[in-house]
């Protein structure tokens, strides 16, 4: 990695924003070890333009766009942050490209056609995300997905010039590491189609569940559940936590130092998944049938889950029973029975 790519061609990157909040950029700017600017340099990625970081405005920006569109300048990586806005009535007028009379969706489609790699940054750009919630007033969608359905702006069969589909770095927001490591792998040429999951997301973070590394796992094992936010117990039974079903490594790589949603005391709301923005129940409530949560842990047979849950509930240690509904550890673990060498 220290070679700094003297013999490797540097790549350029054009970053556009459409129907989103900018939060993925702000999260990316939290990259550490190294910081974002250093990480891009190490990856050999030069910013052709980024809305929050670059100097160029107005006509300078439009000149960059034009040189890429007409292929005078090859485009290595096109990133879109935010949903594609198709409304009203397919015109895209809910988001016109500033300083032009064109819709952003048309500009994005043209640029995607000339880019070596197309990267959707965040759940909005990947699947539509929160901008597509409710009645989806702006007819928002993702680059290659419309919610869980393949298609979106570019269509199901879209492949960028490198032959890869749109790389969907989903998350609301993205973890800075997900983006930086995607760029690094593109720069090193190590990211292949097989490294993407069924929704086009890099498997290095979606081959995990948010449940993995969750500090509440012991409570989960014994079904010692929190009744209210701010309590230490497992949030799956009552508080809408979907961490056992959601693909992401949030509790392995952690956020802003030592954080994650569940460590922060609130449930995983499945923000890396297509369609997370519209559930059929309030986010902070677990839907149940006959007292049993409807959403079972991924890959867990229902009968076994029910049997194990009732067994483990019966076996819940008093320590976990008390701590689950407390906001601090009330009962510390007792002394273990480790067999030390005399």
């Amino acid at each position, binding site marked *: 990695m220290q070679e700094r790519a003297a013999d490797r061609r540097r790549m350029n990157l054009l970053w556009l924003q459409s129907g989103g909040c900018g939060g993925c950029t*702000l999260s990316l700017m*939290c990259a550490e070890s190294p910081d974002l600017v250093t990480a891009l340099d190490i990856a050999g990625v030069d910013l052709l333009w980024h809305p929050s*970081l670059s*100097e160029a405005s107005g006509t300078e920006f439009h000149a960059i766009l034009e040189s890429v569109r007409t292929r005078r300048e090859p485009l290595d990586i096109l990133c879109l942050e935010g949903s594609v806005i198709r409304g009203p009535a397919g015109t895209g007028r*809910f988001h016109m490209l*500033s300083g032009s009379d064109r819709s952003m969706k048309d500009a994005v489609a043209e640029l995607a056609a000339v880019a070596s790699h197309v990267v959707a940054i965040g759940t909005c750009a990947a699947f539509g995300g929160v901008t597509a919630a409710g009645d989806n*007033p*702006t007819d928002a969608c993702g680059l290659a997905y419309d919610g869980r359905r393949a298609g979106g702006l570019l269509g199901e069969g879209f492949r960028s010039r490198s032959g890869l589909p749109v790389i969907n770095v989903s998350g609301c927001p993205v973890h800075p590491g997900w983006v930086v490591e995607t760029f690094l792998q593109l720069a090193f040429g190590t990211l292949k189609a097989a490294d993407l999951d069924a929704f086009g997301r890099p498997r290095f973070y979606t081959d995990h569940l948010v449940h993995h590394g969750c500090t509440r796992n012991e409570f989960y094992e014994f079904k010692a559940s929190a009744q209210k936010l701010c309590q230490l117990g497992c949030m799956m039974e009552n508080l809408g936590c979907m961490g056992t079903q959601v693909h992401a490594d949030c509790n392995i790589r952690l956020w*802003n130092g030592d954080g994650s949603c569940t460590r922060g005391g609130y449930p995983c709301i499945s923000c890396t998944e297509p369609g997370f923005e519209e559930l059929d129940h309030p986010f902070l409530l677990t839907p149940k049938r006959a007292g049993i949560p409807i959403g079972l842990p991924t890959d867990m047979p229902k009968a076994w889950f029910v049997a194990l849950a009732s067994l483990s509930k019966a076996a819940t240690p008093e320590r976990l029973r008390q701590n689950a509904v407390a906001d601090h550890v009330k009962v510390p673990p007792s002394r273990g029975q480790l067999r030390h060498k005399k």
Partner: protein
Amino acid sequence: MSRRIVGPFNRVEGDLEIKLEIADGAVREAWVNSPLYRGFEQILLGKDPTDALVYTPRVCGICSVSQSMAAAAALASMQAIAPPPNGALLQNLILAAENVADHLTHFYVFYMPDFARPVYEKEPWYAHAHARFKAVEGTAAREVLQARAQFLHVMGTLAGRWPHTLGLQPGGTTRAIGAAEQARVLAILASFRRFLEACTFADTLEKIAALDSEAALEAWAETAAPTHGDFRHFLHVSKALDLDRLGLGTGRFLSYGAYRFDETHTFKRGVFEGGRASALHTADIAEDHASSWLVRGGGPSHPSRGLTLPDPDAPGGYSWCKAPRLRGAVVEVGALARQVVDGHPLIMDLVAKGGGNARNRVIARLLEIARIVPLMEAWARSIHPREPCCYHGSTPAEAEGEGLIEAARGALGHWIQVRNGRILNYQIIAPTTWNFSPRDMNGQPGVCEQALIGAPVRAGEVEPVAVQHIVRSFDPCMVCTVH
């Protein structure tokens, strides 16, 4: 006379396009357009009220916690609850962390790089500005991104993550901390203070916060070489370019009051005009759609009864933004407004002499950093580990609520109506909605539109650099503006 459309403006949050009418080397008139509409106020209809805590932070990635806080405050007003002492301390710590990070990002990443543009290469101060602040490449970028990322560990520890946390709730926060987390937060703050005192101010935060007049500020600036500290260098460049003569606002300021404990705001709530502060009457707020691509309804309405329905062909429309007015008047919000309403002597003096302008807005943000970080240290020390940080309430099936807070960029309000346990109406007025509003039914331009009048245009300039300084002096957040 010529007309031109300038856009996009990068290094502002979100999308912005401005139409300029230029004559005799200066801007004669300006029209500010927010070109992106997402429809959050439509999306929220029919939802469970608590789901506002999921959706509204996603209005904006840079003011995410501020949106959370306003939603939590609106829910708390319906639930008639208030957080326990720890909860209030933690909420304010989390909100302050975002505000300070935003001010820092604005100064180093969004505002200062314009002074490293080639247009200034003949200026005697250029070499340092270029080396230090050049976009992406300047020495400041790496240092600041590192300091910012480490400072935002406050969020990891207290709120799970940033942006888009669910840690802020109507009755407090969701992570009760112990003595170890308290110590960790204090260490993060102390380390950030060292960065600020070494790089940004080259002096103690207390010394900066105690500056009490323009004369005191100038005397302080002259105690060292102009490149000694980034704040001092800004003052030096600002003087050379007369930034205090650029971007004059309306002279009317509004603050909802920041960092509330019980009924008291650490920075006062109120309105400031003509040299004196007065009480805010929220009934005086109304939003006008006269120049918006929105269904007009029956004229300006209070946000509690506001309507948001897009109409891209609305006659006279030129922006998706509404035009909020206070008793019909155009008011400026932001750090400058907050500090003048609070009565900080330096800002009072600067406003008395030069009003809201492209220099004073930046000074107010940096002053706020120097004021808030010591407050954060005090709040963190006041936390009682192991005591509760959250009370729980429930929202009545029929209720109305209001959440008024201060985001980094100024006054942020949420208004909610609940019927049959579901959201019947939800209206948001964000800080930049105030500052970057279009003309209202009386033809009054918004704050930025007024501030751009008279901006000099150099020969051959397509995107006048003065226009860029003025626009960015507001630290606009366009994603919040329309939402």
